[in-house]
C-alpha cells in the first residue's frame, strides 16, 4: 500500500510550538492550532479535506492531570468552525458546541479555549461544525496520570503508549452522503455488495425471508449505512511501529474518530488486554477481540511474542468491507486472517423475527443489555459457521481448490468444524468492564429518573428519541447536583453510540459499586441499559448519537443543568432555535428520465416531517401531453407510513375529436387542459406498496397503487403503478452508477419508452 497521504503544509507543524510555564507546580500548556483547507489523496482521487497544523489527524494534544490547557484555534478556512473536547470535564462555555455553548468561530478569527485538566485518560477532540469531522478534523487528546497518583498502575501506566486514531474516508462530500441517505439511495449497498435483492435471496435459499421482510415494510438491512473507500489508522491504511521489539508490551490509546463506522479490533500476536475505556481505568480484562463504537476510546495492551516479527493490529469496519492495519514490532509482518463476509440473509431473518407488524421491535426488557446478546452474531461466519446451502461462486471455487489441493471428502467436514470451533472467540462486552474504583454516587442527592426510547425510520433516514427529533423538543431542565438516572431502550433497527457531553456516566452492570464509567454508550437494537450521573456542572450539555449522520438527522437532546449564564453565548434562546433548525435541514433530490417517448421526472424537498414533491411527465407532442403534479405533505406516525397532502395538478393533452376519458367510477373527461387542486393521503402497505387516495376540487376521486425500486437483482430495479383513471405504468431500470441508470418503461399515456435516467 502506498502512502497516499501527502502532508501539504507540513511546515505548519513546526509553528505549532508548545511552551509551558511553571506556576507553583501547576503547568500552563498551550497549543496553537491552524485550521486550513487542504487537498488529500487517500483513494487515488484528489479531494478536499481540512488539516490542522498541516496534519490529518489533527495533532495529538498531551496534558498531565493538573495542567491548565490553553488552546488557540486560528480559523483559516472559508467557513466557520469549532472544536469539542470529547470526554472532558470542563466549564460549559469551553465545550465547543456551536450555538449551544459558544458562537461559531468565524473565518479569519482566532478563538481561545482554556480550561483546567482535572482528569486523566485517553480522549480525543473534533470539530462540532457541519461535516468537518468527516474530512479530517479529529485528533487524539492524551491526559496523563501523575506518577504520584495513588491510582497509578505499575505495569500499565508506565508502558510505552501510542495514540491510535481510527477513521474512514469517502470520496463523496459528507453533505452529499447525508442527502443520499435521506433519499434512500441504494448506491452504498451496491458498492458494499449488500443489496439483498430478490435474485440474491433466491440464490441463497432465502426467498421467503426476503418476502417476509418486504411484507413487514423493511428495506434491506445492514449494520452500517455508508460505503467507504478507505479505513484509516492515524490516516494510513497500513503502517508500522518499528520501534518495538519482541517481549515489549505496548499500550495502544485507541479512539474511534469515524463518522459512522464501528470497528472490530484484533491482534495477530495473541490476546488483547483492555485496561481503560472512554478514558476511565478498568480492571484488566483479556479478550480475543472487541468492537469499538463510534467515538468510544479503549486503551489496550498487546505483547510482541517473537523476535523479528511485526504483528498486525487490525481494525475492520463492522460491515467488513475493508480494514486498516497497524504492524507492531520490527521485521516481517505477521498477518491476521480477515473477517469473513457477513451472512446478510441470516441477519434479515433475525430482523423479521424481532420486528412486529406495526413496525416496533420486541421489547426484551433488561434481558438484553450491555452488548451481551449480540443479535448480529447470526451473521458472523466465524462464530455461527459458514452458510450451509450456499451456492455462490466463491464456495464453488474454494471447493474446487480443496479438491485440487488433494483434500478428501472429509475436508468439507473439517472446515465446518473449523468455523464452529472458533466460537471459542471471546468478545468484549460492557458486562465485562469493571471500574478500578468505587463509582457509586452520593446517596444524599435527589434522583431524577428519565426514560428514552431510541427511534428511527430507516426508509426516510429520520432518527429520533421518543419519536421526536431535536427541532421538536425543548431543553430538559435538571437541577444542579441532581442525579440523572436514564433508562435507554433502543427500539430502532440500528445500534447507536449515545454520547454525553461534560460528564462520565455509570453504566450499571453486574459489578454494582464498581460499574464502569463511560461517556459513550453503544446500545444495540432491542437493548435496554441504565446509566446514571450526578449533574454537578452547570450549563447546556449535549446528549446525542455520535453516528454523525444520525446526529444531523435529529437524534439529539440537551440537558440544561442549573441556570447558567454563558458569556460566550449572549442570546441563548435564539442560538438554540438556530441549532434546532440546523438539525432538521431540508434535503433536495431530483431525477429525470430522458426517454424516447418523453421526460419522466420528479423533484423533492424534504425534512424530518414535511415533503414537497413535484412529479412530471412531459411528452414530445400534444397528444402525449404534459402533466405536472405537485404535493405538499406531512408524514404522520412513528414509522411515517402515513402522509397527508394538498396538491395541485396541471395537465394539457390534445384529445382526439370524439375522444372521451372515463375513469373507473364512470366520471368523464373531455377537456384538453385541466388545472385542479386536490387533497389526499398516501399510506405504505405491506410489500412497500404506496396506496394513494386523492380527491380533486371538481369532485373527481383517484385511487392509486404504486411500488417503486423493487430490488430484482443487485443492480436491476422494477416498478409498477396502476390507478382508477385507468392509467398504468411498468418500469425496469439498470443502475449504471450513482447518478445514472438505464430505464425502460411502458406508460398508458405515452407508450413504450427507453431512456437514460439521471438523478441527483
Amino acid at each position, binding site marked *: *500500500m*502506498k502512502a497516499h497521504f501527502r502532508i501539504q503544509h507540513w511546515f505548519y507543524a513546526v509553528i505549532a510550538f508548545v511552551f509551558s510555564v511553571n506556576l507553583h507546580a501547576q503547568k500552563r500548556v498551550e497549543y496553537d492550532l491552524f485550521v486550513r483547507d487542504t487537498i488529500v489523496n487517500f483513494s487515488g482521487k484528489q479531494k478536499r479535506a481540512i488539516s490542522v497544523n498541516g496534519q490529518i489527524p489533527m495533532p495529538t494534544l498531551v496534558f498531565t492531570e493538573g495542567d491548565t490547557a490553553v488552546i488557540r484555534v486560528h480559523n483559516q478556512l472559508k467557513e466557520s468552525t469549532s472544536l469539542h473536547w470529547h470526554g472532558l470535564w470542563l466549564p460549559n462555555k469551553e465545550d465547543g458546541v456551536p450555538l449551544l455553548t459558544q458562537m461559531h468561530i468565524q473565518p479569519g478569527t482566532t478563538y481561545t479555549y482554556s480550561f483546567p485538566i482535572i482528569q486523566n485518560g485517553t480522549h480525543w477532540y473534533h470539530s462540532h461544525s457541519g461535516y468537518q469531522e468527516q474530512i479530517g478534523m479529529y485528533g487524539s487528546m492524551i491526559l496523563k496520570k501523575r506518577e504520584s497518583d495513588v491510582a497509578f498502575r505499575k505495569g500499565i501506566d508506565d508502558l510505552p503508549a501510542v495514540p491510535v486514531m481510527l477513521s474512514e474516508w469517502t470520496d463523496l462530500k459528507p453533505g452529499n452522503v447525508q442527502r443520499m441517505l435521506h433519499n434512500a439511495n441504494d448506491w452504498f449497498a451496491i458498492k458494499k455488495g449488500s443489496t439483498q435483492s430478490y435474485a440474491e435471496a433466491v440464490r441463497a435459499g432465502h426467498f421467503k425471508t426476503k418476502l417476509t421482510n418486504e411484507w413487514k415494510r423493511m428495506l434491506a438491512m445492514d449494520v452500517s449505512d455508508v460505503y467507504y473507500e478507505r479505513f484509516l489508522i492515524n490516516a494510513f491504511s497500513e503502517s508500522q511501529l518499528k520501534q518495538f521489539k519482541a517481549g515489549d508490551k505496548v499500550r495502544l490509546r485507541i479512539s474511534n474518530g469515524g463518522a459512522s463506522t464501528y470497528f472490530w479490533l484484533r491482534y*495477530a*500476536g*495473541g*490476546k488483547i488486554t483492555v485496561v481503560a475505556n472512554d478514558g476511565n481505568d478498568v480492571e484488566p480484562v483479556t479478550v*480475543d477481540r472487541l468492537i469499538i463504537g463510534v467515538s468510544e476510546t479503549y486503551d489496550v495492551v498487546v505483547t510482541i*511474542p*517473537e523476535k523479528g*516479527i511485526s504483528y498486525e493490529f487490525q481494525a475492520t469496519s463492522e460491515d467488513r468491507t475493508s480494514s486498516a492495519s497497524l504492524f507492531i514490532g520490527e521485521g*516481517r*509482518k*505477521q*498477518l*491476521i*486472517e*480477515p473477517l469473513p463476509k457477513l451472512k446478510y440473509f441470516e441477519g434479515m431473518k*433475525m430482523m423479521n423475527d424481532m420486528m412486529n407488524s406495526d413496525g416496533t421491535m420486541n421489547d426484551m426488557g433488561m*434481558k*438484553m443489555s450491555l452488548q*451481551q*446478546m*449480540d*443479535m448480529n*452474531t*447470526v451473521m458472523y461466519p466465524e*462464530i*455461527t*459457521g459458514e452458510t450451509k446451502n450456499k451456492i455462490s461462486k466463491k464456495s464453488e471455487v474454494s471447493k474446487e*481448490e*480443496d479438491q*485440487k*489441493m*488433494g*483434500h478428501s471428502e472429509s*475436508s468439507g467436514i473439517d*472446515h465446518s*468444524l*473449523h468455523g*464452529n*470451533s*472458533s*466460537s*471459542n*472467540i*471471546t*468478545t468484549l*462486552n460492557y*458486562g465485562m468492564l469493571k471500574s478500578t474504583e468505587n463509582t457509586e454516587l452520593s446517596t444524599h442527592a435527589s434522583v431524577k429518573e428519565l426514560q428514552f426510547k431510541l427511534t428511527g425510520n430507516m426508509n426516510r433516514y429520520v432518527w429520533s428519541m421518543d419519536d421526536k427529533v431535536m427541532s421538536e423538543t425543548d431543553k430538559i431542565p435538571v437541577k444542579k447536583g441532581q442525579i440523572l438516572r436514564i433508562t435507554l431502550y433502543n427500539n430502532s433497527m440500528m445500534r447507536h453510540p449515545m454520547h454525553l457531553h461534560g460528564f462520565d456516566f455509570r453504566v450499571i452492570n*453486574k459489578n454494582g459499586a464498581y460499574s464502569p464509567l463511560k461517556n459513550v454508550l453503544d446500545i444495540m437494537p432491542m437493548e435496554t441499559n441504565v446509566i446514571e450521573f450526578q449533574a454537578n456542572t452547570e450549563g447546556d450539555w449535549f446528549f446525542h448519537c455520535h453516528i454523525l449522520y444520525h446526529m444531523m438527522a435529529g437524534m439529539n437532546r440537551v440537558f440544561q443543568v442549573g441556570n447558567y449564564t454563558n458569556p460566550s453565548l449572549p442570546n441563548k434562546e435564539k442560538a438554540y432555535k438556530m441549532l434546532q433548525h440546523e438539525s432538521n435541514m431540508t434535503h433536495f433530490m431530483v431525477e429525470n428520465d430522458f426517454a424516447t417517448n418523453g421526460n419522466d421526472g420528479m423533484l423533492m424537498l424534504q425534512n424530518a416531517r414535511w415533503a414537497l414533491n413535484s412529479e412530471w411527465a412531459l411528452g414530445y407532442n400534444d397528444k402525449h401531453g404534459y402533466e405536472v403534479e405537485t404535493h405538499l405533505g406531512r408524514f404522520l406516525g412513528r414509522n411515517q407510513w402515513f402522509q397527508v397532502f394538498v396538491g395541485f395538478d396541471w395537465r394539457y393533452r390534445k384529445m382526439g375529436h370524439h375522444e372521451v376519458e372515463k375513469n373507473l367510477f364512470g366520471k368523464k373527461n373531455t377537456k384538453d387542459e385541466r388545472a385542479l387542486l386536490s387533497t389526499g393521503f398516501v399510506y405504505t402497505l405491506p410489500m412497500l406498496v404506496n396506496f394513494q387516495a386523492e380527491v380533486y376540487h371538481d369532485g373527481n376521486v383517484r385511487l392509486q397503487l404504486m411500488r417503486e425500486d423493487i430490488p430484482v437483482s443487485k443492480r436491476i430495479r422494477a416498478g409498477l403503478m396502476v390507478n382508477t383513471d385507468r392509467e398504468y405504468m411498468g418500469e425496469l431500470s439498470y443502475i449504471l452508477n450513482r447518478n445514472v441508470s438505464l430505464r425502460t418503461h411502458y406508460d398508458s399515456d405515452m407508450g413504450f419508452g427507453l431512456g437514460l435516467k439521471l438523478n441527483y
Partner: protein
Amino acid sequence: MKKIYLLVTMGLFSCATVFAQIKNAETKTFKVKAKCVSSKEIIESAGNQKRISTVSYNTDEGIATIKFDNTKTTAEAILKKIALSGFDNEQYFAPDNVYEKLAADCKYTRDKKAADHSVHSNSTHNQSKIQSHTQTLHEDHEMHADDKSDLVLNAYFNMKDAFVQADQSEILKQATLFKKILDNTLKETPSSQNLTSLSNLTHKIIQEKDIKKQRKFFAELTQPMYKLAKNAKLKSAVYYQNCPMFEGGSNWLSKDSAIKNPFYGNQMLSCGSTVETLK
C-alpha cells in the same frame, strides 16, 4: 451499416488486447515459501489481477516473479494477497489459521515458531485428548477418581459445545460418547446415584429427536453435574453459568468464563452470566 458493425467488433477486439496488457509495468522477484505442486496455482491466482498484475511462481526455486502496474498497486500489496492465501514470503507471514487450513502436503516449514495462541488448535487438541483418554480407559482400569471426574466433565463440555453450535448430529455424537464414559465410570462405582441420573438423562437426549426437548434434558443434567464438579478436585476452573430466559432460568457448566449459551444455539450465544466459579 455493415461497416459500422465491423468497426465496433474491431474496437472490441483491440480493447481486449489492451486490457490484457499491463501499463506502467514493473517486475520484481520475491522468495515465497511453498511445498506442494498445487501451491503454484493458488499463489498465482491470489496475485493475478486483470490489467493490474500477474504473478508467475517457480516451484523449484521458490521464487515469485511479480509484474505489476506501479501506478495502480505495489509489490507489497500483491505479496500481502499471496500471504493471505497461505504462503509466507519475504514481507509477510500468512495468518496462522490460513496456514493451518492448507492441505497436509502443502504445509511448508515456517521461519517462525508455531503459534500457541491459535483458538482452533486448542479445541481440536482437547478433542483428541478425550479420544485418547477413552482409549486408555478401555485398556487401563487403574485410574484415579479425579481423572475420572475430569474425563466426565470434559465429555460434558464437548456435548455442551455441540449444544452451543446447535448441531444435532454433533450433539448425538457427543452425547453417545458422554454416556459411554458415564457407563464405564458407573461400572466401578455402581452405587452412585448422581452418575445414574446423568446416564439416564443422557440416554433421553440420545433418544430425543427434537432439539428443544433435548435442551430441556440437557438443562436437567446441570444439577448432578454441578454436584460432581463441586466434589471433584478440579485441574482448572469450572464456571457455573445461568441463562435467565430458558425455562424460567437454567444453568450449565463451562470451562470458559465467557458466556456461550447452549440453550438457544447460535442465536443468543452470549446471553447469560456466571453465577459461581468452581476451583
